[in-house]
Each structure stands twice: as C-alpha cells, then as structure tokens.
C-alpha cells in the first residue's frame, strides 16, 4: 500500500485528534471525504464508472463476454475481477511494484462477491452447461490517496449499475443445434440488479477509536483495521482484519456495528447519485477525463 513517512509528533497530533473526533481536515470519525461519481466514461465497455474520493481516483470497466459456465455451477454466469495498479498512481507502483497490492485487492473483491445473493448470476445464463455471460470487471487505480478498498467497491457497484448486456435469443434448429441470436437494436439490453451488491467499508483503528475513510497520513498512524463489506440492507458479506497490529474482540464488535451503519448510509448516497445521473439521461454533459 502506498504510504507516507510521518514524524512522531505528527502521529501524536493525529492520534489525539481522532480521540476528540476532530480529524486533521475537520471531519468526524465517521465522515467520508467528498466523492465524485461518474458512469459511462469508457465507450467500448458494457459499463464503466469513475470514482474520485479525495485524492483517490479509481476507474472500473465491465465487459460482458460469452463463455462456458463453470462445471460446478452450470446454470449461472460469473464475474472475474482484475485490479491494475497504474504506475502513475504513486511512486511505489513503479514497474511491478503494484502487483502485490493488485492481487490483494482482486482477492478481496472475489471474497466480497462470494455470496450467492450479491448478484443474480442465474440471469447471466444463456444455455445451461453451454453458454453464459461472463462479466470481466477491470479496476484501474489512477491515483492512490488512501482508502482504496472503499473507493474500488463504490466504483464496481456504479459500473455494474451502468452495465448493459445485450439481449440474446436461443434458436433451435430441427436438427437440435442451437444458435444464439443477438438483437439488432443496440438499446435492447438487460440491466443488472445491484441492490444487494455490497460495498466495502474500511475501519482503521487509531488509538482507542476507529475512523472511516482514512487518508494516507491516518493510515500511517493506524496499526490495525477491519474491512467490512455491507449490503444496502445492512447485511455483512465478509469481514477481514488488516494490518500488523492487534484488535481486541470488543472493538471488533464496535467496528462491525459502525461498518454496518456507515455502509447503509454509503449505499443510500451512492444510489441517490446514480439515480440522479440516470434521470438526467442524454442531456447530461459527460465530463470524463478532460473536464
């Protein structure tokens, strides 16, 4: 993970600030930085989204391709995640420096989406045992400013919300061979139901309290943290401890409760902005990367 070096007095200042619920930039322990969300930024994907959370910039593209289903789940499609830490994000990602972090982020995403109820995978099936939709979710880290997991999960949810999979029909011949026909209309597509897609909330323990959405400086002061993935209804899909320090069981319980609370608010805010963007329709001016 990208890190900054801080002096001891700076760390002490941050620590005492967190105990009094006033962080360096004036936020409380449960406040997020101002986030910017935009979908449909990459034209040759089935769905894309860009999320800017303070100095953290994430771009996600989803491509839907036809393939064969997995052997153990023949009537479902599936998702494949890949996280690329761009060398531009921070100095540590030069050359192959970002590979380890990329694979860690990818594994976390697999774990978070491991529940059957996150996405309706049965709707991605075309022909059982033969054809299904595989959603390749590619995440690109453009800038690293702390709190990568949260920003990535928000971007993934927004990109899945934006994904449009073309409608296909299966035609059967007299001989029994099946043909797949895609509709000619480019706007004839199916959308995914992202109501139960979880979002990750990272809680970093600093001193005796925990903070949400830590900046790089705050991450340098925290020795342990908890990664919680929450759905919009408040159900947890995965919990993971990060960092080399230790957490005692009571604080784990408190952090999980905070994670659930903050997670529900996060989902509400994201859904609101996605609906707002959708309602603007084609009249929305796309800002993209040159704004």
């Amino acid at each position, binding site marked *: 993970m990208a890190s900054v070096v801080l*002096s001891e007095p700076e760390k002490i200042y941050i620590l005492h600030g967190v105990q009094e619920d006033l*962080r360096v*930039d004036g936020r409380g322990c449960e406040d997020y930085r101002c986030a*910017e*969300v935009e979908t449909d930024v990459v034209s040759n994907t089935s769905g894309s989204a860009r999320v800017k959370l303070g100095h953290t910039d994430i771009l996600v593209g989803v491509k839907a391709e036809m393939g064969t289903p997995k052997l153990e789940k023949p009537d479902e499609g599936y998702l494949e995640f890949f996280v690329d830490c761009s060398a531009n994000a921070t100095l540590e990602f030069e050359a192959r420096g970002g590979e380890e972090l990329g694979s860690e982020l990818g594994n976390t995403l697999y774990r978070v989406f491991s529940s059957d109820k996150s996405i309706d995978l049965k709707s991605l099936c075309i022909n059982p045992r033969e054809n299904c939709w595989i959603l390749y979710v590619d995440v690109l880290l453009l800038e690293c400013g702390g709190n990568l997991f949260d920003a990535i999960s928000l971007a993934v949810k927004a990109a899945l919300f934006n994904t449009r999979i073309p409608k296909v029909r299966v035609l059967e011949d007299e001989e029994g061979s099946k043909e797949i026909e895609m509709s000619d209309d480019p706007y004839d597509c199916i959308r995914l139901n992202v109501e139960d897609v979880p979002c990750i909330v990272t809680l970093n323990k600093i001193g005796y309290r925990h903070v949400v959405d830590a900046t790089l400086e705050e991450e340098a002061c925290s020795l342990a943290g908890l990664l919680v993935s929450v759905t919009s209804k408040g159900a947890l899909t995965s919990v993971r401890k990060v960092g080399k320090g230790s957490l005692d069981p009571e604080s784990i319980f408190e952090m999980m409760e905070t994670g659930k609370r*903050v997670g529900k608010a996060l989902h509400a805010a994201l859904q609101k*902005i996605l609906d707002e963007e959708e309602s603007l329709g084609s009249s929305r001016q796309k800002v993209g990367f040159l704004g």
Partner: protein
Amino acid sequence: MAAISMRLPEFRKPVVPSVSRGEEKHLVLPGDTITTDTGYMRGHGTYVEDEKLIASVAGIVERVNKLVCVRPMNTRYNGEVGDIVVGRITEVQQKRWKVETNARLDSVLLLSSINLPGGELRRRSAEDELAMRDYLQEGDLISAEVQSIFSDGAVSLHTRSLKYGKLGQGVLVEVSPSLVKRQKTHFHDLPCGASIILGTNGFIWIYPTPEQKDGDAGGFTTSTEPVPLSDREVISRLRNCVVALVAQKLMLFDTSILYCYEASLPHQIKDILQPEVMEKIVLETRQRLLDLEG
C-alpha cells in the same frame, strides 16, 4: 451520524485572472513561439526549430538582455540562498542528513550546520556523529534556511538560529512552490490562534502557537502534550483554507490566508473542502485583497 456527500463531476471553470498591475506577463504553453528574432540566446525552457524560438514548458517568458528563458509555473523547488524551507529527513548519513524539500535533488543538512542542544559551540566529534539519530531521525520535520547551493543544484541547509529546528505537533500541507509569495518573514503568528510557517519550497506547516518561547531548548525537544480542541479547530480550518486557496490558484501569504480564514468562519470546517464553498470563500478573499490594494 455519518456524513457522506457524493456529487456528479462538473467541468472545471477557468480561473478568473486577477487584474494585472504593471506589465503584462507573457504566458506561453509548450509549443508556443516566443519570438522569430534569431538574435536571442535560448535559455531554460526553450528550444530552436525552423529559426523560431519555441517554449518547451508552460510558464512566463523572462528576458535578460539577449537571454530568453521560460520560468515554469508548476515546477520543483529551485533553492536560493536565504530561503526558508520546511523539509523532511529521508536519510541519516555520515556527518549529514538528507532532507526532502520537493526539489530535484535531496537537500543536505550538514552536522556542522545544526545547533547542538544546550547551545554549545564546539567542534563536532565522533560521538556527535554516532548520536546523530538522537537529534534528527528519518521522518522528522525541520524548518531551516538555505545556506548555499552546490554546483549540481542541491541545496545545503542550516538551522543555526533558535527559530529553526525540529518541528513538533502540527499539520503539513504540500503545495506548489510557485504559489508561496516571497516575503520578508515566513514565520507568522496569526491572530486567529495558530502559527504558520510558509516554506518557500511549498511545504506549509501549521502548528499551535507555543506559549512561551523556550530560548535555550535549541529546537530539539518536542512536546507530546495533547493540543486543546479549540486550537485544533483553528488549525484544521487553516489547513482547509490553504487547500482551498491552492485549488483556486491564489498566492499564499499571511494576509490571504487570514482573509480566507475569516471568510470561512460561517461554514463548518469540513464543508470548506466542498467545491461550491471553496469557490465562494476564495472569491470573497480575492475581493478583499483587491480592496486592500485599491
């Protein structure tokens, strides 16, 4: 209880150029022709193509007799003797420390250029060399003055005055060096209740005003007492104001920071970083600064 605000992105509005006093500045972008007169010597930031002098960086054209060069706006810190800088120790080497000052090369702080605790004046011995890490470690922040510049451009610092030395509790904001106005003094005790050091290298240090001036401490002892909440609020507000001024590309000096602080008082500290609020308070600051001049 959790405050989460999300928004759709907006196009960046072009920053309104302030009313220029004196000559018009000749701004160029990479690729712009500066002059077609072949009598000029090309300096930094320019190159010759097809008998035209073309700029290679975005900045202001400077002419000294026959020498034309372009001074870039967004650049690393270029040290000059007498500048006050705030730096972070990156390495501890034999008889010197390497300091990160946002310059092209790491700056150097020689063991002979610091004040020993207790204010002793003596030759540095081998024991001093071994005890270097007790004075300054990797990650420590210091305020120093530029003593000289090596031939390769690396800057040599010194802390041979009681006002320089290791910095204690506070907040560091890193900005572009061209946004810090060169003034008579860079140490300010703002009337709002905090102190600020405007390093010419773009490192701004905001810290609580010390109660009494510890004369003989030599700047190496740092207090670990918790800073009171009222001071914290002032420091956080100042930090957000500095970030707002930098986002709107306003020069940083004590008056502009103070006016921005006063303009931000009606808003909550965490709201200052929202784009609309930022624009509003910087506009007010700009207005007050123009009234001050006019």
